């Protein structure tokens, strides 16, 4: 058996979450929009900035807000010499734990200095605000080495006061994965690229799996015997999807069917089309409609959909048990 190149593909997963802040984080963000920083007093008398919702010792809900300074002391830091795309700055900067004046617990933010040599533990830094604060931690563009003149200027430019309390924020989260198909799937997709459905047989229970995962989920043993399958299938079950699915371009209604290929013992799902929806049924015979060969890729959507063929229905007790030669009726 020749080993195929293991396939890999980028895969982006992203969503803009709609987060409720609750009264404590909401107040903190609202104050940021006013270019103010607040902390909260804990049961031990310490001031936490940013504010905590619940006391770390007593678990009681906290509520005593305290305005804290816009300057503070760097408690610890680390230099980022090669910022990444998701970092707040394109030039090298430091992540730092900063204990704001009037607070007892440090908060994390960035400090911008020309070089790493400009950073030291214990240094004084001040918040540098963006021009138009939105009610976000990034309203503080960064902290910079303390400069009383700049701080005074910052206060002059205090933001216009929007009194409405922030209750919710939008949080876009996105990650690009490098998905690696693995050996069994890569072999399978290499065959699909040639217009061939191929399963793998379990050496113990003799069941044929498609798409193969390289092991039998029932027996827990590796599979490597390949079995060429037909692109004729039997409908095992199906649903007609009537609602748009978020992020899915297919326009409803459409039929997603559980199909068992001749020679296989398990179903996969694919679209069923060129059919009368009301007449689709278990045991119905269907066949793949392939894209033009020049469009074939390492993907199951080389098959556009399956469509009914003129063969008698398979009895229920034979579904999933047909040989690759198919169904004689």
């Amino acid at each position: 058996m020749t080993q195929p190149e293991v396939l890999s593909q980028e895969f982006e997963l992203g969503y803009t979450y709609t987060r409720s802040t609750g009264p404590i984080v909401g107040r903190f963000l609202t104050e940021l929009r006013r270019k103010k920083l607040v902390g909260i007093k804990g049961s031990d008398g310490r001031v936490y900035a940013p504010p905590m919702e619940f006391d770390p010792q007593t678990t009681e809900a906290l509520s005593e807000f305290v305005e804290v300074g816009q300057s503070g002391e760097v408690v610890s830091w680390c230099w980022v010499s090669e910022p990444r795309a998701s970092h707040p700055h394109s030039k090298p900067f430091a992540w730092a734990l900063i204990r704001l004046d009037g607070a007892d617990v440090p908060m994390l933010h960035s400090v911008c200095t020309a070089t790493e040599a400009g950073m030291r533990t214990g240094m004084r830094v001040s918040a540098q605000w963006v021009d138009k604060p939105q009610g976000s931690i990034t309203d503080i563009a960064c902290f910079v080495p303390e400069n009383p003149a700049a701080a005074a200027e910052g206060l002059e430019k205090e933001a216009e006061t929007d009194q409405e309390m922030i209750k919710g924020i939008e949080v876009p989260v996105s990650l690009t994965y490098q998905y690696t198909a693995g050996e069994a799937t890569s072999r399978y997709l290499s065959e699909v690229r040639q217009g061939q459905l191929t399963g793998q047989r379990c050496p113990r229970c003799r069941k044929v799996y498609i798409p193969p995962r390289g092991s039998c989920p029932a027996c827990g043993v590796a599979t490597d015997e390949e079995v060429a399958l037909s692109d004729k299938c039997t409908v095992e079950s199906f649903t007609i999807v009537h609602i748009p699915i978020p992020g899915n371009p297919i326009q409803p209604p459409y039929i997603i069917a559980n199909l068992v290929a001749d020679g296989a013992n398990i179903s996969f799902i694919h679209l069923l089309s060129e059919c009368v929806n009301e007449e689709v049924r278990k045991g119905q015979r269907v066949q793949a409609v392939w894209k033009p060969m020049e469009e074939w890729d390492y993907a199951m959507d080389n098959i556009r959909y399956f469509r009914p063929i003129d063969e008698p229905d398979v009895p229920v007790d034979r579904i999933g048990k047909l040989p690759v030669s198919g169904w004689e009726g």
Partner: protein
Amino acid sequence: MANLAAVVGIGQTRYETRRGDVSIAGLVHEAALRALQDADLGWNAIDAVIIGKAPDMFEGVVMPEIYLADALGGNGKPMLRVHTAGSVGGSTALVAASHVQSGTFRRVLTVTFEKQSESNAMWALSSKHPFSPHLNAGAGGYFAPIMREYIRRSKAPYDVGIKVAVKDRLHGARNPLAHLQLPNITTQEVEASPMLWDPIRFLESCPSSDGACAMVIADESLVHESPQRPAWIKGVAMRSEPTMYAGRDEVNPQAGRACAADVYRQAGITHPRRELDCAEIYVPFSWYEPMWLENLGFAEQGQGWKLTMAGATSLDEAGDIPWNCSGGVLSSNPIGASGMIRFAEAARQVRGDAGQHQVDGAATAMGHAYGGGAQFFAMWIVSSGKA
């Protein structure tokens, strides 16, 4: 031999579309505090915190248990998170119970939640997979073909699911915590509601809810410290199986049958319909009631729908084995909490404090949850009697 444990405190939030007034931390704290108050205990009476929720993609907070330690009194205590997809609310309760039954901890706080308004579970369950056509169509898309197969096999009339949808909403209207309050719902209304994933109609599906549920589970020796009548835990069982293997019976999963057999054996139950007074069973889509009636041994194969249609599972029809008196998942679905709500509502029934949805004199009740591709099962049986 396991130590005897009981539910001594129960706390739930109200379930609703959007709890815009609280953060996730505020939501779980609310349920946990109510459970402690119910048990007349302070945070320092708790030895460990067991938390559960469904996939992190539902809120986009990765490992939320870390950030929730402050809100749940977890600092300085063992705190761990359970995850078994949709069944997690049930398995979290069972992990908490087993820590008490084993003697590892004497009193445990267990909390589950979902804040579905922070995203869209349908999106999270339907993402495109590399190298594959984009065919995932939410939980309904996955389960609809399985329900269709149940209907074919059992020759059930088309309106069984409609009956369940109405019945559970009428139950939910008795429960002030339930998300959907539809006291005037009719079969015509359910039947006329849009088809989403044939054969599942809109009103045959669960809602998307925000909410949290919590319980305090205590060792026998500490039960007297809480004022409520204890709900004694008589059986606990979990089972799982692969999502797909050749020959798998998806309609009547083996793991569900094995889990039920185990929990009945522990609780000394041989005839669940006769010996249980009521049950809170995870039914997110209406047809799962008759399917689980069979899977859990309340009815013979192919006969579950007849119980439903005869009103056996209905409180309003004075059925002999009411299912989901609280309104069930069909009335409230904060996914990660939904299983624990089943467990907690079973406990409320045997405590006799279920209010308008109380089954008179309920002494023994079952809580059930399932998740993933109907591959994870969690069940418990609770009783008002200690012996």
